[in-house]
């Protein structure tokens, strides 16, 4: 049980690594963006994990109940902001990918490089 208390952090580390691997190793630009989204989600998981209090509940204060524990509101606020940032980055990245496809006819990184070197 003690060890399971760290499970969320392990998942964070693994998902983080999977996402980062996709961003670095994959040549397809959309795949890179998907990897980036996974990578950012992992960080969200880390933040949300620390807000949890045993026996607590979401920080919406219930009237008439004394001594209720509430989870930490601050990481939730930060992650709300970070989710928005993530979506914005994804949208911007996809717009650039669409233009790359139009300009180069491909969305594979190596082919784009080749096409610039021969041109």
């Amino acid at each position, binding site marked *: 049980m003690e060890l399971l208390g760290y499970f969320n952090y392990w998942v964070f580390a693994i998902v*983080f690594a999977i996402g*980062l691997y996709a*961003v670095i190793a994959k040549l397809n*630009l959309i795949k*890179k963006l998907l990897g*980036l989204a996974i*990578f*950012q989600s992992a*960080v969200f998981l*880390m*933040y949300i994990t*620390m807000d949890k209090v045993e026996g607590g509940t979401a920080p919406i204060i219930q009237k008439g109940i004394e001594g209720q524990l509430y989870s930490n509101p*601050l*990481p939730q606020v*930060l992650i709300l*902001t*970070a989710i928005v*940032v993530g979506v*914005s*980055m994804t949208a*911007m*990245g996809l717009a*650039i*990918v669409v*233009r*790359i496809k139009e*300009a*180069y006819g491909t969305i594979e*990184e190596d082919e*784009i*490089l080749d096409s*610039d070197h021969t041109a």
Partner: protein
Amino acid sequence: MSLSAQLPALQIVVPLLTAPLVVLLKPRGTAWAATTAASAMAFAIALAIAAGVLSGETYNYAMGSWPAPYGIALGIDAFGSLILLLVTGASTLALLGCRRSLDADIEQQRQPLFYAAWLLALAGLSGIAASADAFNIFVFMEISSLAGYIIVAGGPDRRALPAVFKYLIMGTIGATFYLIGVGLIYMMTGTLNLADMEARLGDVTNLDPVLVAAGFITIGLALKAAIFPLHVWLPNAYTYAPHAVTAFLAACGTKVALYVLLRFDFFVFQGNLAEHDIQFSLFLLPLALLGILIASSVALFETNLKRLLAFSSVAQVGYIMLGASLVTVTGLTAGILHMFNHALAKGGLFLAVAGLALAARGLELRQLGGIARQMPWTFGAFVIAALSLIGIPGTAGFVSKWYLIQATLDHGALGIVAVLVIIAGSLLAVAYVWRIVEAASFGEAAAQPDTGAISPSREAPTVLLAITWLVALLNVYFGVRPEAPVELSRMAAEILLAHLL
């Protein structure tokens, strides 16, 4: 509330409030005018803040009137005000000078969007410089990066697109690494305010997560600051961006990330992590030295003018890191002063490039043949800024390099090596600048767009020429009378080091 107490907030609110309005300005030129006005106003505010800081004031501001660890605080000290000056000044001068150049690069209908993004980049960068809250820095970093991707994507060449994509991927990885680091520190301290973090880290008994956090934050910010070897996004992004954007970002973009890195390191980590300065001497110092040598050498063989200057920027980041990694007052003063001086030199160079580009057929060195004869004034300003980049006595670049050499000489054998590297880097700079001058002055006069007679008046537009010369002369002025920036840098260095005691 007096106006001067509201200055830190106004510094960010003015460009932020103007950005949505600019989107609506359709008639030709109005978007540019509004953007320039807002930017100039921000510059005026930054000047006022700098004057206040020089007279011993510090600016603290509580957003929403909430006290510091609970609400978000702004804090501007000498270091911050120097960065603010750079950001707003670079933006204003680039906008003033490069209207023609931007008109050529970006279609009329898209200009309102472009200028709104420019203002957001300005607001984001100033927001980072003014903030005293770790997460708030992340938010404004994202604003400035997103806006930065937009304005870089305005470049006319199709190669701008892969460059921006790479910039976006690297930038997001950097920002996310920073976010992880902040999360780990928050996990151990329970606070996001930088000053509060420093105080509370002292009580943390188990420092392993903090160590990991320091690693993440350093790597993330090094990515953003293009510290060698994490600079791979920078050359292409600078090369294919519109010239005005390059002038703006090259002057201040990476400096802001460096500023956050130094602040985090000195405010939060140095005082609390035992032997944290080992991180500096073991990793950053060698990287800085390698960066100077390798990036300068690459610049030596580059054939595109803007790419060459971009690699030179990577090398200059090395000088700044070298000064900072000595962890002494002189070293930090030199590093911070070099931020200022390099911004002046590189800003001037890229402004001159914008002027040259209006007349030249392309920016490959061979296409620039004879340009010095056709645009003597523009090229003259280019040469003066380049001399400052090299560090010729009498220019601003010399002052910071002089300080840097003084600082390194205190460090024994290591210092000798560092001095040798600085000298080697400067010699390499002489070589690559000479290549440009040679190509421009003595090369074949290939730059003839039309077959007609050589038109004598092919100088850059008067405004751009005036601005470029202004920056070039500032390089000389601060070379002869460096008191004000030196004073600000010294104050900044002392503030940073005060956290080590």
